[in-house]
């Protein structure tokens, strides 16, 4: 297959070059313009990985072992009568990285664009690490995980003068492959269980989109409309396999979830905009209607380690559950801009939205017979969970933005934004008896009106008092208050779940960022950016709604950038970024179930170098060093999941132009990842060698 593909690529390239050569001759004869061609091939790229190749692939988006192909190509050709043609593409076949774009455009007539692209996302196939285990300390799937993601789009437009511009689009997006999930599975060694077993999900997803757009100006009003249909369907299969050193059959059960979701979405969007009074005032409005229906069929199978359907205690056997959702939304927006003076602008905005969601589902369960050692389900539905939910939401949004640039070399802005949401929600879940009596534990009902009030205030500026100094400052304060007005809810017993347990929630987010850029000389340009974000979460609920529980996430990020150009042929850049972040919740102070603060600290150094001692020779190199140090050993009471590793990436390339049109670039890269074995699995050292060949012609 790959050999065949390579032959096709070479054939296409040769054909393209032949046609291109002819076209150049033709262009020279006919004087229609300057066609240009650029091809960059990567015929050789070999990555040799020692260690966890899955993690290497996931972190660098690079396939190990051999990969090669066409890295980039483009051809542009101006034709007579204001017509232009361009094509571009690349094909790194072994990496599943393909793209092709064709564009034909004629001024005052229209265009045709065809665009295909696909790339591959890799996933690590190892779950977590628990250092106190000896046998099952970490666990690896027996399959490599990757997902091909791509799209094909065909867009044609008519751009005739004095007539509405029309655009027709067909697009197919797809995802195909298998990805990892963080729904890790229980791993048991002796009497201790930690959820560190890897899990995966196979995905086959296709989205077809059709769209018609029209764009026209009438009496100075720009009108824009779009009608869009989207059809989405997918099949997925998720597998979670419990692991254990014990001989208990239920400790090795496998759970498989099959899903077939589908959705049809239709949207109608209309926009209008007009500028008045010598462009000092503008106003615009927009409306969108969206109608969506989706359906899903789902089954869950619980299997024993030999993949035979088996009921253990509290079994999860679902057969052909079906769900339906209908969603409608109407959204109106409007905004204006007033510029009474050249240096002052006011932009008021508003939004109004109505949403309705109606949902129902039925989940038949085959949960008998049950035995300690496991029994096959009898194929008769025991109970069916039936859900009926209704959701009606209204949302109002208002905003005003003030901009002032009356002070020389200074721009100041001040934005205020408000949002009010009223959401009426009715949720009911009933258990219908089948072979067995209905399950009262599944009964759930709730009717609630929740009110959200959101306020955001932003103040910032950009100052450039001298040509060599640029300073920006940005402050953003956000407050969300959510109040739950619980009208009806179940409270079935002392220990079983209750449907309502939050009465109020308040979230406050404070952000500050500042950037200083200095252009001291042509050869020395440092910059510094600081960001601070603090998010405070307050919840009030049962058993005493008068007490507010506080959680907090806080992060500081410092980034330095230094650009040095001591000689015209030498450019160096050094960057350093340090993030200190933590999340803390009331669980950190719990006497019975303590979960310490979660830290997410990381520091990264990056050096980049470009050196061109001769016009035909360019040396480029990057060096990255990154260190995350977040292992907190509370393994005796929990499962630490903080990232704790060191990473080095080094790339070196030497580009040599053989002549005006052709250049070659041998490349070498070294990638190193070293994880704390108590915190995570997946060390690797990787060496990559490659050669790029570029051909350019104008």
């Amino acid at each position, binding site marked *: 297959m790959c050999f065949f593909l390579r032959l096709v690529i070479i054939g296409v390239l040769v054909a393209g070059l032949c046609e291109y050569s002819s076209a150049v001759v033709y262009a020279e004869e006919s004087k229609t313009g*300057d066609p240009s061609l650029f091809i960059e091939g990567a015929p050789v790229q070999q990555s040799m990985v020692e260690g966890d190749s899955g993690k290497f692939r996931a972190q660098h988006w690079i396939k190990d072992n051999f990969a090669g192909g066409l890295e980039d190509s483009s051809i542009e050709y101006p034709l*007579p009568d204001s017509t232009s043609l361009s094509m571009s593409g690349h094909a790194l076949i072994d990496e599943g990285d393909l793209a092709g774009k*064709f564009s034909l455009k004629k001024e005052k007539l229209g265009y045709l664009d065809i665009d295909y692209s696909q790339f591959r996302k890799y996933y690590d196939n190892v779950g977590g690490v628990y250092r106190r285990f000896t046998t099952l300390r970490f666990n690896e799937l027996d399959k490599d995980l990757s997902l091909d993601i791509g799209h094909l789009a065909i867009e044609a437009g008519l751009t005739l003068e004095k007539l509405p511009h029309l655009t027709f689009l067909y697009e197919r997006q797809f995802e195909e492959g298998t990805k990892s999930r963080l729904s890790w599975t229980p791993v048991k060694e002796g009497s201790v269980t930690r959820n560190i077993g890897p899990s995966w999900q196979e995905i086959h997803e296709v989205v077809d989109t059709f769209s018609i757009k029209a764009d026209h100006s009438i009496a100075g009003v720009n009108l824009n409309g779009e009608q869009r249909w989207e059809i989405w369907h997918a099949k997925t299969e998720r597998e979670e396999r419990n692991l254990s050193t014990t001989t208990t059959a239920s400790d090795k059960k496998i759970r498989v979830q099959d899903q077939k979701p589908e959705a049809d979405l239709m949207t109608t969007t209309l926009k209008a905009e007009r500028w008045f009074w010598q462009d000092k005032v503008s106003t615009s409005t927009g409306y969108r209607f969206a109608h969506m229906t989706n359906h899903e069929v789902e089954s869950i199978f619980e299997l024993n380690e030999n993949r035979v359907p088996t009921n253990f205690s509290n079994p999860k056997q679902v057969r052909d559950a079906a769900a339906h*959702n209908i969603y409608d939304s109407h959204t109106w927006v409007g905004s204006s801009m007033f510029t009474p003076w050249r240096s002052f602008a006011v932009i008021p905005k508003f*939004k109004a939205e109505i949403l309705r*969601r109606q949902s129902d589902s039925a989940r038949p369960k085959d949960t008998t017979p049950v035995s300690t050692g496991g029994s096959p389900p009898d194929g008769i539905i025991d109970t069916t969970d039936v859900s009926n939910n209704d959701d009606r939401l209204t949302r109002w949004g208002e905003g005003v933005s003030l901009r002032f640039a009356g002070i020389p070399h200074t721009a100041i802005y001040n934005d205020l934004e408000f949002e009010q949401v009223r959401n009426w929600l009715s949720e009911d879940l009933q258990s219908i008896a089948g072979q067995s009596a209905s399950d009262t534990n599944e009964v759930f009902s709730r009717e609630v009106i929740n009110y959200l009030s959101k306020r955001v205030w932003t103040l910032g500026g*950009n100052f450039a008092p001298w040509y060599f100094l640029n300073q920006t400052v940005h402050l953003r304060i956000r407050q969300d208050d959510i109040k739950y007005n619980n009208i009806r809810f179940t409270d079935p017993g002392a220990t079983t779940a209750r449907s309502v347990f939050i009465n109020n929630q308040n979230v406050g987010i404070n952000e500050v960022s500042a950037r200083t850029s200095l252009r001291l000389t042509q050869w020395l340009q440092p910059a510094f950016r600081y960001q601070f974000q603090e998010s405070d979460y307050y919840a009030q609920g049962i058993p005493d709604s008068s007490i507010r529980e506080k959680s907090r996430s806080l992060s500081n990020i410092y980034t330095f950038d230094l650009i040095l150009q001591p000689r015209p042929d030498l450019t160096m850049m050094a960057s350093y970024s340090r993030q200190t972040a933590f999340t803390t919740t009331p669980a950190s102070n719990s006497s019975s179930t303590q979960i310490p603060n979660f830290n997410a600290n990381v520091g990264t150094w990056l050096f980049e170098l470009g050196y061109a001692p001769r016009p035909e020779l360019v040396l480029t190199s990057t060096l990255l060093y990154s260190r995350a140090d977040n292992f907190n050993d509370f393994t005796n009471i929990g499962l630490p999941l903080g990232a704790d590793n060191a990473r080095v990436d080094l790339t070196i390339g030497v580009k040599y132009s053989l002549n005006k049109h052709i250049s070659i670039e041998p490349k070498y890269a070294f990638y190193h990842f070293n994880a704390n074995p108590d915190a995570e699995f997946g060390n690797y050292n990787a060496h990559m060698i490659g050669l790029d060949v570029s051909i350019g012609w104008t």
Partner: protein
Amino acid sequence: MRNGGRFGRLDWGKIKVGAFFLVLALSFGLYGRLAFSEGAASESSLPKKTPPPAEKVSISKKAEYVGSETCGACHEREVKEFQRSTHARISVPGDNFKVQGCEMCHGPASLHVAASGGKGNIINPRKDPNACFACHLDKKMEFRLPYHHPVLEGKMSCTDCHSPHGEDVRPWSATTLQDVNEACFRCHKEQRGPFVWEHEAIREGCTTCHKVHGSIHEKMLIARDNNLCLRCHTQMNFPMIGKQNHSGRLPQGGCFSAGCHTAVHGSNFDDHLRY
């Protein structure tokens, strides 16, 4: 039978590769047809040039700033639209301060103007995220963290999510026509729902839990352990959550592991978001 790989009826790999080469072949074919069938020898008004690699040097070093008014001669709509945009608010006035308006991101445009437009003679941030990184230094580094959206790899661009000309560069504010998560759902449709049982946190935005440019944690989570969920799902009699005592479960691992709340984005069947 149930170990995956059951979607093999259609060989999508072959179909996609076939479609790719069909587009490429069509491109070359059409190109050849057009190149030779249009025999007119008129002068083109669009002398488009793509600099060959050896000449791909920094445009900004060769070009001069021309000001947004010059850009408006051809890009009237974009220039007007930009006046209302978030980015326009930091455009610093002043006779000696030339980097304003369009050229803040697109760089000096004199070469582009001299060539009557075209590609390759002006910075296109859609194709080169370095234009954005010039101010957003921190994002360049975040994209280099182990788990990130593939912007530096060239598989995405900043404009896939952000609308740099638009009224809101982050088109998920309280007054945008787009929904708060629409930029994410363009690709992540499986999380879009609607679900029978929704996770209310989704309404607040994906960024409530995900650090979307890059993270040191898988799936770009803000926090990797149960603290992520406990920020909201906490109460004074913890480890009770609702009326369930979670003291036995929380030490074992994440809230969305072990078959518990595995459908964190929403479930069609389970009120506790279990599958």
